[in-house]
């Protein structure tokens, strides 16, 4: 008997991306640059987060033409973003042959109360989280992979660091707690007790955890790996830089050699200008994507 869409297959797919870099792309040409540079997967989008931020208005799933173009262009897995709670967008992406769906706060949420029931899909989902409670709620809904939210499209690493430290710190706190303490902790962070217990026992999240949001340089990628990330999502950082080929290669090298400062120094040389970053204090409350879908 053949079984498809099982938890093992969904979480297993995510495990195969560990130690790698997943890059946002908006067309076939960018997808090929990402593949040649050594990306483990690409994220097909209509606009990179920095452009979504600049354009304003409602951000939706990419045009299926773009998704198909990217799927046809590369041999590595293709991911695409659906709006939070937008079941129909997710169904469309699954039909198009996308390998994983990102239910993403980068797009304008379709549902302010509920996320997609990800267990109903054959393909796996990745979701953003700022802390352990959010991460475990998403896993309970069926997410096979977590990424820290950061603040997308800013080229500013500060929020990704804050959230990775938050998740890792919380895991360290519960690792070794007594069961009655875990009950209370689970209530406080509004997470299911079974997943809290599992995380405490493992000493890590029960699924793969990548860093995302604001990674703009090789050093940023190394920093997130050193903080315990399983891999890196780069959004605007590559194709909003002056030299996308060089940046893409350098970020892959930096992720693979994150603990070798001499390699990091070498790959960081002469890259040209990184994307222009945004200072968090310049963002109004309504500009903050990380507060969506919590």
């Amino acid at each position, binding site marked *: 008997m053949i*079984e498809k869409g099982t938890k093992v*297959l969904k979480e297993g797919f995510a*495990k195969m991306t560990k*130690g790698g870099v997943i890059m946002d792309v908006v067309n076939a040409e960018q997808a090929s640059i990402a593949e040649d540079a050594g990306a*483990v*997967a690409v994220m097909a989008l209509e606009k990179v987060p920095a452009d979504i931020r600049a354009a304003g208005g409602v951000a939706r799933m990419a045009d299926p033409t773009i998704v198909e173009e990217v799927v046809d262009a590369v041999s590595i897995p293709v991911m695409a973003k659906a709006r939070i709670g937008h079941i129909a967008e997710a169904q469309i992406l699954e039909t198009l042959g996308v*390998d994983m769906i990102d239910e993403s706060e980068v797009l304008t949420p379709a549902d302010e109360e509920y996320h997609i029931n990800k267990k109903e899909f054959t*393909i796996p989902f990745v979701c953003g989280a700022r802390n352990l409670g959010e991460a475990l709620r998403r896993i309970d809904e069926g997410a096979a992979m977590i990424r820290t939210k950061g603040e997308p499209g800013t080229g500013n690493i500060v929020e990704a660091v804050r959230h990775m430290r938050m998740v890792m710190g919380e895991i360290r706190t519960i690792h070794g707690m007594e069961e009655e303490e875990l009950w209370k902790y689970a209530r406080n962070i509004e997470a299911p007790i079974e997943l809290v217990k599992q995380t405490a026992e493992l000493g890590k999240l029960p699924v793969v955890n990548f860093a995302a949001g604001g990674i703009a340089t090789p050093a940023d990628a190394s920093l997130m790996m050193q903080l315990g990330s399983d891999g890196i999502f780069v959004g605007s950082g590559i194709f909003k830089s002056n030299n996308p080929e060089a940046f893409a290669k350098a970020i892959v090298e930096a992720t*693979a050699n994150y603990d070798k400062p001499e390699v990091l120094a070498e790959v960081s040389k002469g890259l040209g200008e990184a994307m222009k970053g945004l200072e968090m204090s310049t963002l109004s409350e309504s500009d903050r994507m990380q507060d969506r879908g919590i």
Partner: protein
Amino acid sequence: MVKIGILNLQGAVSEHFDMTRKTVENLKLDIEVEEVRYSDDVEKCDGLIISGGESTVIGKLIKERGIDKVIKENNIPVFGTCAGMVLLGKKTDFNQPLLELMDITVKRNTYGRQKDSFEAEIEILNQKYSGVFIRAPALESYDGSKNDIKILSEFDGEIIAIQQGHNIAISFHPELTEDTLIHEYFIEEVLTSLNH
């Protein structure tokens, strides 16, 4: 002491590490298991496991770090799963760096995309086994003139596990199951290679 290295470049490395440790404990053998990332660490291994992941990415890093040379110079037996199977082959359907240790041609994503990934009961080494196939490759062809090639398993008309000398290539993921059968088999192969 005999040492099994888990090549830690990209992919499901910790899963293979845990599985290999479990296997060594089951067999009550005094074998060291270590994650290895650079050629000088690989050189000290008596057997090497290459995990699933993206074969394009792992292959590139293997070449850059000179790991392919060290494997060949020292005749280190390699056990490759999924992406590892692709890398062990002489050829695949994309232009990418390969180890070329086995006289096989591997077809990437034989079964299609992630929505086509599947679990199925297969038979290998005369036992039932839970096969986890994730965007899995399978064998396109092998060199029938080589008498050291042995087919270990077929499923639905495709060759999914094959051995040449002490190298083993399989298209699925034993590291995502609880069953140490295939890891045990590889460790025995490594021990045999050392006795020769």
